[in-house]
């Protein structure tokens, strides 16, 4: 049962990487589109329907982690305190930018929030990467220890991966000039992300105290392999396939890290009574949650057009 919950926790964070990852990446792309108000509006419209349903995965991860692996959660959160404060602050700002953008007239007002969203998305993604990089190691207390080379590499790799994922999403969901522009950017990002992910895997044995297990290796290699697939698909103009491949790459990152530290996590698992109660109460809802999200995707499966509903 503990392993089931380990998988659930990994998938919840993986789900956040795969879903909010593209909201964040598309948010970063807003920074590239400075001065092009109509294109920026379409980027916001493209992520709009998924925005709410994407970010809930991280909240669900935090909530479930706290109950199932309380010791690990308490230790991680206390050690990575500043990282989490920065991450949640950036999250607040990113969301505020999204919600406030269209709620007042004025180009300047909107442009300001769009730029804010771009910056906050980068900071949010970087601190999420920093958090994961620190989870791999067992860092001591103190702010500087959190900025180890491996954690910093993660803090670069995760935003890059999200930027690729976000532009792949925009390639698949928009049309015309914006789609071409997103595709070109994604094509340029793909080799960079490939290198970064390979570097992360290559250096993992140096920092992971428990060594690299075969499961972790397989999950880890899924990342660069999918990025390679995405790169080819982008060049071939297969937008849907490219987006699916970047999604797999993003989703695979947290489970790979989870597999690296599985021993430590399982050692801190909650009492069997808790796990049992929670399994009975919380596991049955999971298929329903996935179903609801699938309906949302089905309703919004088309590329953006003039009739698409906007809100943000």
């Amino acid at each position: 049962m503990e392993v089931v919950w380990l998988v659930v926790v990994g998938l919840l964070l993986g789900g956040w990487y795969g879903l909010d990852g593209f909201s964040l990446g598309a948010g970063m792309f807003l920074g590239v589109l400075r001065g092009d108000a109509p294109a920026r509006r379409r980027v916001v419209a493209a992520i709009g329907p998924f925005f709410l349903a994407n970010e809930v995965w991280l909240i669900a991860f935090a909530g479930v982690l706290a109950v199932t692996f309380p010791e690990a959660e308490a230790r991680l959160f206390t050690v990575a305190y500043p990282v989490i404060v920065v991450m949640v602050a950036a999250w607040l700002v990113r969301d505020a930018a999204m919600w406030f953008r269209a709620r007042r007239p004025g180009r300047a007002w909107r442009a300001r929030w769009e730029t804010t969203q771009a910056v906050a998305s980068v900071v949010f993604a970087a601190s999420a990467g920093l958090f994961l990089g620190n989870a791999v190691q067992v860092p001591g207390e103190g702010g500087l220890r959190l900025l180890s080379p491996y954690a910093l590499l993660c803090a670069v790799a995760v935003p890059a991966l999200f930027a690729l994922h976000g532009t792949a999403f925009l390639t698949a969901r928009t049309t015309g000039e914006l789609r071409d522009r997103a595709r070109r950017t994604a094509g340029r990002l793909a080799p960079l992300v490939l290198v970064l992910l390979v570097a992360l895997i290559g250096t993992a044995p140096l920092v992971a105290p428990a060594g690299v297990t075969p499961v972790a290796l397989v999950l880890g290699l899924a990342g660069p392999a999918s990025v390679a697939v995405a790169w080819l698909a982008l060049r071939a103009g297969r937008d849907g396939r490219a987006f699916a491949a970047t999604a797999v790459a993003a989703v695979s990152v947290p489970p790979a890290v989870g597999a690296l530290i599985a021993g430590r996590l399982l050692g801190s698992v909650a009492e069997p009574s808790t796990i049992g109660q929670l399994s009975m109460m919380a596991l049955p809802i999971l298929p329903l949650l996935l179903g609801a999200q699938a309906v949302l995707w089905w309703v919004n499966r088309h590329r953006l057009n003039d009739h698409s509903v906007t809100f943000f």
Partner: protein
Amino acid sequence: MDALSLARLEFGLTTSMHFLFVALTLGLAPLIAFLQTVWVVRGEPHYERLTKFWGQIYLVNYGLGIISGLLLEFQFGLNWSGLTHFAGEIFGAPMAMETLYTFFVESTFLGLWIFGWGRMPKVLHLLTFYVVAAAAIGSAYLIVVANGFLQNPVGFRNDGEALRIVDAGAVFGNPAALLAVGHILPASLMVGGFLMAGVSAWHFRRGTGEVRFFRTSMRLGLTVGYVATFFTIGFGDASVLWVVRNQPTKLAAGAEAERAQAEMIAQHGPGDYLAPLWVPIALTVMLSVAYLYVLFALVPIVLLGRGRIERRRLLLGIGVWTIPLPFLTVILGWLVREVGRQPWVIYDVLPTSAAVSTVSATSVLASLIVFTALYVTLVIVGYVLIGRIARRGPASLFLGRALGEPEEADESATAELAKER
């Protein structure tokens, strides 16, 4: 200040500001569900406009609720790992279920509601909002179950190191939780109902011309708010009775307080176990506000018939200016409940000082400053935007707008430009 006081201050500030939005979300959701139901059943455009207009206010407020709620799930891990460590099994379970069963469901279905506008079959679209409203209520219940355990720990075994669940039924059926839900839901309806009436009053005062629109809104808001007042008082009084019997250190005064204090000292050693003196005063203020509504909300209700209220400028003005009153009162209620529990985080089981994380005061201070600044900005900007939507009335509705239509701002872009020059 030490880490404990700073962490308490941070929790109090952020949770209070979060609850301002929660109360309105909880209060408006049933009203909008009602309006949309009438729209779907009767097919009248009048009710579609009502659903859209109040839906817009609901949504912006909901967004603020999400944003201000993000931190809370993380705050327990950051500042209160002692609580997570000691009672995570019991306290964390309803919290985790809240994230999965209600927040997750609520956000996903709200996405469907917003972006399915005009895209989904009408009945299905209505059902998505029913799910949203039900999830909001479920969310309130689960959070209050977690909080109820802190007020009245039940169904657990203390093995010295941590608390273990013994009886989940007792945890989820905790009277401290059920009474609170019974109190919070109608209190939120007061917030939502009187806001609806207050906004309508503003439009009548200004003579904005949307007479039928705001007549329906005023009637619905006042009626629901007024009826909810009685339920709020009923469950509130029951809660007070329960507190007097089960949490003697919270509201007691005089000889009774001394007895409660002596009992605590006998059990747990020396210390100050009584709640601050202002807690009973805050309770009295809260009760007074409720009775004010019982007395004076009757006046506009009597004048509802044949639109007589629409010309009473003074009365309408009072309706506008008292919009914040229910908001402030619900915060007062939480202060009574939470500060009154001190010095315990889990009443009679775990002192608050043992719940705080082993982090430096500087770290907590930094996060307190960062988040207080963000929250205050959020509250101010948020209410300015909500106020703007409320004042513009149903003339310009953006809910369900298509990408092909120009953005609101573009219509007045020239005026904006002129102003900037």
